[in-house]
């Protein structure tokens, strides 16, 4: 199955443009999805931290740490939340969800006023930690660690779906373009074979009388050229 040479260049050009479009759309989508999903994730984390801080005021003030632990244990069941810990007004971690212990990186740095930490915990992974004050900080502070791996997975999944769809469309476009080009090229190839047959009947490919008739009967440009070739070939030299 061959395609006319000048159409091959056109086809290659089309594929190149389509490829550039697919790559460009994917890149823009990746950037946008990453930024927006990550932004949403941090925003949601802050809301969760605020909600937790507000709902645990009484148990923290009453030093009912068992009840406090009950509450934070339920929060780590939320997808993406990797850990929770609560620091009291004296700076002591009074409840947490770490097993087998509180990571050293956290023990070394959890008392600053920062609202968002980026944590790399050895052997555990990378996290974005958001904080919320309990009673404006008078009763302590809640820390929630969001798993960056989970965010990355969400972004990759969203991007993956988009790129997958674009790739399928690209492959379909290539196949359809190729088929269309072939449809256009076929009468031209027949015309060439017909011309060769007329010019050198003993060398050219045998042109069936039916196909010859078919070419000559066409009402388009191919038929017109075929008739001209036929007239020129039949004209006595």
């Amino acid at each position, binding site marked *: 199955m061959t395609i006319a040479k000048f159409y091959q260049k056109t086809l290659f050009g089309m594929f190149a443009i389509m490829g550039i479009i697919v790559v460009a759309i994917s890149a823009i989508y990746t950037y946008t999805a990453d930024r927006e999903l990550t932004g949403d994730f941090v925003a949601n984390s802050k809301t969760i931290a605020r909600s937790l801080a507000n709902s645990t005021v009484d148990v923290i003030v009453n030093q009912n740490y*068992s009840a406090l632990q009950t509450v934070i244990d339920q929060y780590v069941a939320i997808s993406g939340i990797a850990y929770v810990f609560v620091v009291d007004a004296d700076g002591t971690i009074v409840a947490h969800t770490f097993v*087998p212990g509180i990571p050293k990186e956290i023990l070394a740095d959890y008392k600053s006023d920062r609202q968002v930490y980026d944590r790399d915990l050895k052997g555990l992974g990378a996290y974005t930690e958001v904080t919320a004050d309990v009673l404006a900080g008078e009763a302590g502070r809640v820390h929630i660690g969001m798993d960056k791996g989970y965010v990355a997975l969400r972004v990759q999944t969203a991007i993956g779906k988009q790129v997958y769809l674009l790739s399928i469309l690209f492959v379909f476009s290539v196949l359809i373009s190729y088929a269309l080009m072939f449809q256009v090229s076929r009468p031209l190839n027949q015309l060439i074979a017909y011309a060769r047959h007329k010019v050198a009947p003993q060398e050219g490919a045998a042109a069936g009388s039916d196909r010859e008739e078919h070419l000559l009967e066409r009402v388009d440009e191919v038929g017109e050229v075929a008739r001209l070739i036929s007239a020129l070939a039949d004209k006595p030299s």
Partner: protein
Amino acid sequence: MDCCQWGKGLVAATLLAAALATLTGAATAAGQATETGGVTDTEIRLGMSAALTGNARGLGIELYRGTMAYLESVNAAGGVNGRRIVLKAYDDRYEPEPAIRNTVRLMKDDDVFALFDYVGTPTMNRTLPLLRKYRSRHFMLLFPFTGANTNRIPPYNEFSLNMRASYAEETGSLVDHFVAIGRTRIAVFYQGDSYGRAGWAGVRAGLARHGLTIAGEATYRRGTPFSESYDPQVAILQEASPDAIICIGAYGACAGFIRDSRARGLDVPIGTISFVGSEAMLDLLTAAGETTGTDLTSRLVSSQVVPSYHDATLSAVREYLAAMLRYRDRIMPPAELIGAQDEDAPGSYQPLAFGFTSFEGFLNAKLMVEILRRMGPDPTRADITRTAMTIHDLDLGTGEKLSFGGADNARQASHKVYFTIVRDGRFVPFNDADWAQWAKP
């Protein structure tokens, strides 16, 4: 509308209202007929949610057995005011969500007289709000197998009565004894949930009274079995160089931690509290020690909230031992809850002849029956607290006086903490003078 039509309409409306009132009355009467408040002419129903399967099943099953041993003897003698005491139990696997569902079922479907013998802090903490929600029906949680303070302080203390000492009292007492012998660097190994946190808070508060802080801490996930390695936790605590360690966990995890601590050379005294399930822990440690040829039970102290069941000088102990022997074939939880138990089948639960947990269940039942007797022939849920508050200096046969109420409106009958160590393969009393042998060199 003319006056005749208006009159007919009024008559019709009146008849309809009367019919509706009759129907409503009948429905209410029917509702009252089915709502017995957990008391019928022949029985009083108590409801229990506990770990009857899973890694903590030894606690729930033994508590149930001890309770049933006493209830069987009471029922055999005619019950309380002619009514049998029935214990309706459900398995929650020591997980909060099933415990909540079980509690709803006990309240709404089984219509129990009271919730009784619940096992565990994470389960109890999550079910307490149900008592508040249904406060109009006066449900009470009586004598849960936990020392957490959630049901001992507002807002849930009004819905619960406790027999046992609290975790704060147990851990505080352990801390006091360790500090008294010069072991001031105390670390905590605890279950990473509300139970562990309650114990952790008790240790922290106990140390604070001496101007000390926790030397180090490590956690494990609830349900972690004995077979798991506890080396990461041991390594964390080793870094803290503790003089003593207090374990707040269930028997499997505590036994695993002790095994791995000794294997890594961490040989300081280790204390556990009553919830651990001492005999089950001892069985695991003994078996592991026989395998490795080491003694894993030395320098191990367990606090208890009931006296030693080996002390036959106590009338409650004699009564308990006799009942456990007499009813041993009739006091296992129903097979539909724990599965068919075949002695030879792997994974089957082998009940203990005696133990601290079943003894506590026995004493819980004794106290419960005492309250029911004091309530007279028409017990109601609403009257439970008032009746319990009449109990002052009651001796159940342990030599200790139990009291509710008083000036501080106490809702915990006992504050007594006992200490035991392993000697000749069993837990025996460890008296104050004995602690000196573990003094820090």
